């Protein structure tokens, strides 16, 4: 699960060398700028910028396609009816079905925007370990409690997933194999979930005690804040400035 995203996090490319803190800010700005795009004329430019970024990142195409498969299903389900129900200008009529121009344009806009945003977010999080991204969020002054919660949730997500799989196997070995939605089925799943909650809760208490013993919650040395200050190298600075300029261009072009 974690490795799937971090499979290409240690390649050598300009995007991989880009400091995660400035990369985070610049690419997030670009994602928002893409979300602003409402004009069809900007779509081609948006696609070109995305292709350029992905090529610079040296990530394989198969990686992108595998990551687009799951959101692609949701996206298709959301826009498949648009050409038939949105708009008035008919392009093709076939029996009771009429494909309309406005609906096609809306679907094209949504799909292109979504694919570009997903690709940029893959470049952002697929070119560095996720822990670097979370550290970058800390240096952007996101509240400590949210960062600590993110780290802990991420840390235990996979372990609890494995625990659930083991518990489900144990249930199957004891004869639970129902695939029918009955009150009894729901009760057993609720008890399974409840047991997982109880185990997580007990574990959280042990983790808390261990963290307290290691000094968690005590003030860090004054030098610590200096260590995580953003230090931009030349290439990171150029990449950040260029990306921010492109993002501003898209926002201005969309609003004008």
């Amino acid at each position, binding site marked *: *699960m974690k490795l799937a*995203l971090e499979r290409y996090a240690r390649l050598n490319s300009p995007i991989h060398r880009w400091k995660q803190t400035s990369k985070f800010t610049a690419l*997030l700005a670009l*994602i*928002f700028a893409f*979300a*602003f795009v*409402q004009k069809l004329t900007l779509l081609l430019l948006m696609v070109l910028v995305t292709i350029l970024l992905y090529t610079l990142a040296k990530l394989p195409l198969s990686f992108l396609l595998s990551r*687009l498969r*799951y959101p692609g299903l*949701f996206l298709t389900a*959301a*826009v498949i009816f*648009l050409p038939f*129900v*949105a*708009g*008035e200008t008919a392009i093709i009529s076939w029996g009771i079905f009429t494909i*309309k121009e406005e*609906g096609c344009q*809306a679907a094209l806009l*949504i799909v292109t*925007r*979504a694919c570009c*945003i*997903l690709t940029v*977010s893959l470049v952002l*999080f697929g070119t560095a370990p*996720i822990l670097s991204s979370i550290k970058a969020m800390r240096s952007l002054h996101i509240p400590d*409690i*949210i960062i*600590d*919660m993110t780290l*802990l*949730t991420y840390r235990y*997500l996979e372990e*609890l997933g494995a625990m*659930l799989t083991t518990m489900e196997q144990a249930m199957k070995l004891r004869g639970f194999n129902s695939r*029918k*939605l009955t*009150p009894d*089925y*729901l*009760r057993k*799943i*609720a*008890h399974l*979930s*409840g047991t*997982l*909650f*109880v185990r*997580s*809760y007990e*574990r*959280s208490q042990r983790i*808390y005690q261990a*963290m307290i013993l290691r000094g*968690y*919650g005590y003030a860090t040395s004054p030098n610590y804040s200096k260590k995580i200050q953003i230090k931009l190298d030349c290439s990171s600075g150029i990449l950040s400035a260029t990306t921010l300029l492109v993002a501003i261009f898209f926002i201005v072009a969309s609003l004008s």
Partner: protein
Amino acid sequence: MHIADGLLPPNICIAGYGITGGMTWYSLRQINKQKNPREHMIKASLLAAAFFVISSIHIPLPPSSIHLVLNGLMGVLLGYYAFCAILIGLFLQAVMWNHGGLSTLGVNGALLGIPALLAYYIFQISYRLRQPIWKQVWAFLAGAGGFGITAIAFTLLVITTISADIDAQMEQKAIYASMVGYSIQMGIEGIFTTMLVSFLQRVKPELLP
């Protein structure tokens, strides 16, 4: 029940971030008023991880299957931490599985997080009533209500903003059709929350706020 990147216009995305920012500030303010927020934070983090693992269980609902959203239950168990936990879960889902999105993180956070806080307030009413049966009734209302509010807001938002060219009658039909589907899941979420709360009441009552 996540809105993917690219589906919503920018003004809605920005408004979503505004609302989520405000609600996060409010939740953190309430959390910092507590006696030992760090201890509860660790509990909330692990329970949040457990929630996202449990929400991956397929519940058979012919002809297909569904995943439980469990935002009502999160509100019941995590209280003010529920909003932050949902936001973190949505962020990790967007980053790790491309489920949801970064531009719509604010909207998704508000859609799932505000009903979770409402579910927490609904469940708190049960503490004023002595009989245990009322706890189960309020647990059902919290679980079903949390999901129901999310489903209504999600449907209205997606159908009314996806394209300006869809006529009002078509929008109305789509909203009704979605509501029928979601009302079944609402019942399942309510019953599941009731069963889980009764289980925890017997096994680990300190897990309930």
